[in-house]
């Protein structure tokens, strides 16, 4: 069953002289229990999408959608006050930079208690402590971290705190925004293992925003490929990464050094992202696509169901 369905989601940033169309026509439905990786390079709109879903866009950011159904309820048209009731209770987010997400001048317990109070003002301190101690043991944190300040903790520990903060109300959907990116390799691996376990234990649905295909391969079961604000391919990780259909996905996988033997076979993608204040009318990847044909410059491809996944490419029949 679909937990969240987004239809024709657009996010624009209004600048002085132009409008940057960061996310365009994003349509995706995520099933309960899935761990979906959203892969994109910088400027692909993946973080903007996450922030849009949480309604925490900067002031010049505007989101429009024909519908966003979360848990059976259309949340695209509810007021900010109504959304505030949902935020953190039904959907929460874990940020990349735990260091800047936590207040440096409050003890961990105090700032986490604050979050709890904002939704359940009647919570007693002892109960909050009990709850947080339990959560901490789940994410492998010592209980004494509650009485510490952020600067006393390592990057991995802070990220675990952010994750446990995201789980405080046992939400259905958790968005993980590049949570392992700034961490060391081993800490990153340990955290990925833990997230996998948490998703099962808490019956979560997770969206993992990342630029690293390896992370998605280890953590997720579905993957969405974003480029220049559009969704280009969506399906099972096994299918999309090991047998990509869309030319961008193909190129992306090829440019990953992975654990390739030495020196051979790595290919970059020449060219740069299109200007998103004036995105191309037709295919967004046309300029850089090695498989392009004349028709690709004229006609806009639609996201179609193809061989058990969703692909956006006019030539998908020939290329897959």
């Amino acid at each position: 069953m679909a937990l969240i369905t987004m239809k024709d989601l657009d996010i624009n940033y209004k600048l002085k002289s132009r409008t940057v169309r960061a996310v365009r026509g994003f349509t995706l439905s995520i099933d309960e229990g899935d761990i979906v990786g959203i892969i994109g390079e910088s400027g692909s709109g993946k973080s903007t999408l996450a922030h849009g879903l949480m309604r925490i866009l900067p002031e010049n950011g505007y989101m429009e959608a024909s519908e966003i159904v979360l848990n059976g309820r259309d949340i695209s048209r509810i007021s900010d006050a109504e959304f505030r009731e949902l935020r953190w209770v039904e959907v929460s987010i874990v940020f990349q930079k735990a260091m800047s997400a936590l207040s440096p001048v409050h003890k961990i317990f105090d700032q986490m208690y604050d979050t709890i109070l904002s939704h359940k003002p009647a919570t007693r301190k002892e109960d909050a402590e009990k709850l947080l101690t339990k959560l901490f043991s789940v994410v492998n944190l010592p209980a004494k971290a509650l009485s510490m300040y952020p600067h006393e903790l390592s990057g991995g520990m802070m990220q675990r705190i952010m994750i446990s903060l995201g789980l405080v109300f046992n939400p259905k959907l958790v968005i993980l925004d590049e949570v392992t990116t700034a961490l060391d390799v081993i800490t990153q691996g340990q955290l990925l293992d833990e997230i996998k376990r948490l998703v099962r234990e808490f019956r979560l649905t997770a969206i993992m925003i990342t630029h690293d295909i390896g992370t998605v391969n280890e953590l997720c079961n579905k993957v969405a490929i974003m480029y220049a604000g559009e969704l280009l391919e969506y399906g099972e990780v096994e299918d999309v990464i090991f047998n990509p259909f869309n030319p961008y996905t193909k190129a992306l996988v090829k440019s990953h050094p992975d654990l390739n033997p030495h020196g051979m076979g790595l290919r970059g993608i020449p060219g740069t992202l299109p200007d998103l204040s004036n995105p191309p009318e037709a295919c967004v990847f046309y300029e850089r696509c090695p498989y392009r044909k004349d028709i690709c410059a004229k006609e806009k491809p639609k996201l179609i169901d193809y061989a058990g996944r969703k692909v956006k490419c006019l030539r998908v029949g020939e290329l897959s």
Partner: protein
Amino acid sequence: MSTEMLKVKNLVKYFPVRKIGKKQYVKAVDDLTFSIKTGEIFGVLGESGCGKTTLGRVINRLEMEQSGEIQFLGQSISGREYKEDKYFRRKMQMIFQNPYDSFDPRYMIYKSMDLPMKINMVGIDQKRRLEKILETMNHAKLTPAESLLTRYPHELSGGQLQRISILRSMLLNPRFVVADECVSMLDVSVRADVLNLLLQVHKELDSSMLFITHDISVATYICDTIMVLYAGKIMEIGSSNDILNSPLHPYSKALVSYSPTIRKGEKERFRITGEVVTPIDPPPGCRFASRCPVAKEKCTVEEPKLRTIDNNRQVACHFV
């Protein structure tokens, strides 16, 4: 190929910790001995705080060592700062992680490329120097070269600027290049091209390189030999394929098993606990002992020496 370009013997670099009363040191680089052959790309792999950047800076004379000896092209360069020694600077160059920091924002790219040659008196006059710059850029397919030269750093993308910074370091035909995390900032699709450019110019100049990275897939792609560092000590040295496919040291095993990859199927983790230690006055014995799953009593008492196993394979562990 067999001649040694750089020899490092018992290299030590400590940083004092600012503390009143007791004097303490961060043992960033502690007694390292290794050598780099002509034409070799020598990878330094490790997590944050392992001393890999310090090592690069000491070799490049940006920091002075505490003790130990460095031989470069058969001559000892330890104990000298080489600030004014143009001959030395021509022979040894550095590529930094963030290209936006390594270019003067107020200089046109042309000026940043021309100055090093002018100062080192490479090329007879401005016209010849410009010819050489254009030739190098065109050869590296960085086009249109003329128009790129008239830009300022902020007008270029990170990938373009990093490629220019690689070419700039090569203009003086150096014998040795220290590349410090030079692709970590870049998107995968761009990273591939930068790595390939690095390989190409390296091959053409037959220079040697110290390639510092935390990413094992990048390291195995580009390096001939990999040295694994942990908390200022060498854990293992071996060919990149050996380190990747059959790591011997427990730390290398963990590092390889925790790196996210795009290989099919579930990977067996070589589980370790804890986080990277900062080497402030470390206890005797092996630096990795506190986290090592196979550590015995001996490991906390006696420090393992770097032993040669076979085929230029060296490991510092009692139980290999």
